[in-house]
């Protein structure tokens, strides 16, 4: 198999950490309140296995909170049921990638990639670390400390760390928002290629990013928040952002987001 730039890369790595079969995700009756104000009330959603789902929405609507809830971080109301589509628990089947790279500054790049092994007291598959760093284009920087890397490179290490876990479900919380436009486009392509076949839940504030990467796109709006109807852009991901059909969808999405944001402000005014 050849990369976009023509160099060979080892496809077995992708298969090795490839989850099969894909695990879907369902959220039933999610509830959460912040100081009396309900953020979610009976929020239910189904995320298909092996699909890349993007969640858009105005800031403060609870996108990140929903993702954290699924990741098992923070308080969860006992009524909330989050499980795999087949009803089994999601324990240790989820990888979480945040907006900040969260690299530990005292560990080298390769140690950061293998952080999960270290934390669980397992031995690290060094060959796997090496091939993942090759995949994300950081072959030369194994021993570098995070402080020596650029923002884009750091996010690549974070992506490699996420992939290292080989979890079937990947939660991404605005992972590419802190880098410049060109770096972001490259990271999107990289992620689309390396995460193919996994169940991805991707929170973003960038409609174009959602249109490039998502098989399915939801707009999250309201208080308590609900997930809007699914938009399914046609074609393989990562899509060409200059495609006129995508441009048109972009307009539709922006209009939806505008409405959602307007609701948000009027809700805020009532309180």
């Amino acid at each position, binding site marked *: 198999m050849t990369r976009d730039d023509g160099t060979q890369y080892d496809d077995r790595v992708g298969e090795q950490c490839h989850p099969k079969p894909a695990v879907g995700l369902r959220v039933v009756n999610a509830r959460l309140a912040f100081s009396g104000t309900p953020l979610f009330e009976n929020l239910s959603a189904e995320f298909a296995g092996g699909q890349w789902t993007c969640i858009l929405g105005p800031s403060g609507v609870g996108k990140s909170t929903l993702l*954290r809830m699924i*990741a*098992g*971080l923070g308080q969860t109301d006992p009524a909330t049921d989050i499980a795999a589509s087949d009803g089994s628990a999601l324990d*240790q089947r*989820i*990888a*979480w990638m*945040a907006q*900040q790279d*969260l690299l*530990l*500054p*005292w560990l080298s790049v390769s140690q950061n990639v293998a*952080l*999960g092994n*270290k*934390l*669980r*007291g397992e031995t690290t598959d060094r060959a796997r670390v090496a091939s993942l760093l090759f995949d994300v284009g950081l072959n030369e920087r194994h021993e570098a*400390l995070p*402080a020596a890397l650029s923002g884009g490179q750091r996010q690549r290490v974070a992506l490699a760390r996420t992939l290292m*876990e080989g979890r079937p479900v990947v939660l991404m919380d605005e992972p590419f928002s802190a880098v410049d436009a060109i770096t972001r486009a490259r990271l999107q392509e990289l992620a689309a290629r390396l995460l193919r076949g996994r169940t991805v839940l991707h929170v973003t504030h960038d409609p174009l990013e959602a249109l490039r990467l998502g098989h399915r796109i939801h707009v999250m709006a309201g208080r308590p928040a609900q997930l809007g109807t699914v938009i399914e852009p046609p074609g393989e991901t990562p899509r060409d952002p200059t495609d006129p059909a995508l441009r048109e969808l972009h307009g539709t999405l922006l209009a939806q987001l505008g409405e959602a944001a307007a609701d948000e402000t009027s809700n805020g005014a009532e309180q």
Partner: protein
Amino acid sequence: MSILRPLIVFAGLLVLWQAVVSIFDVAPFILPAPLDVLTTAIARADVLAGHARITILEIILGLVFGTAFGVLSALTMAYFRPARSWILPVLVVSQAVPVFALAPILVLWFGYGMAPKVVMATLIIYFPVTAAFYDGLRRTETGWLDLAQTLGASKWAMLRQIRLPAAMPAFASGLRVAAAVAPIGAVVGEWVGSSAGLGYYMLLMNGRVQTDAMFAALFVLALVATAIYFAIDALLRHAISWQPESDPAQ
């Protein structure tokens, strides 16, 4: 270059000192000339070295015990909430009661040997180490902890791999303060009652109006304190070399 400027300052002070002695014709038992102090220091190098050895040992033992108790207290406070209300008062009192006031009692309890000086140095060091390390343990970046949780880390692994290394810069600040104040504890202890050490020797020479020998001991003490501080500083810098520094003056 970095060593040159302190040396210039030091040499300048020596010249000033010599000038004051020469111009005002100060009696040698009030202020001996730096050259006389140096001559005495060289003549009594053996005696000074013997006393310095005792003081250094007291300081280092104080640092070891103070740091050990400080680290244990900080960890206990961080992980056992009920312990906070028990340890915090001890911590505050250990700092509120001047160690000078405790010195006679400690000598009474532990005798004229090394023990009361080590206890005194330990008491002085305990507070900065505990306070700084406890603070560091509580200020771990929450994102790292969240990440560790999703990676299936045990509580122990989170402490060992995330919280402890993340608290190292704060701990280092505490230890630096400790290294700077530790000699105070040892010397105060020696003043109050002892049979050896630089503080004891200073007091002895003071009584015999051998001011030049007193200054020589003071000079050695300053040298010892500075050396200990910089040794610890270098060690800490090496241990947390990953910590990027930002110079406010830039």
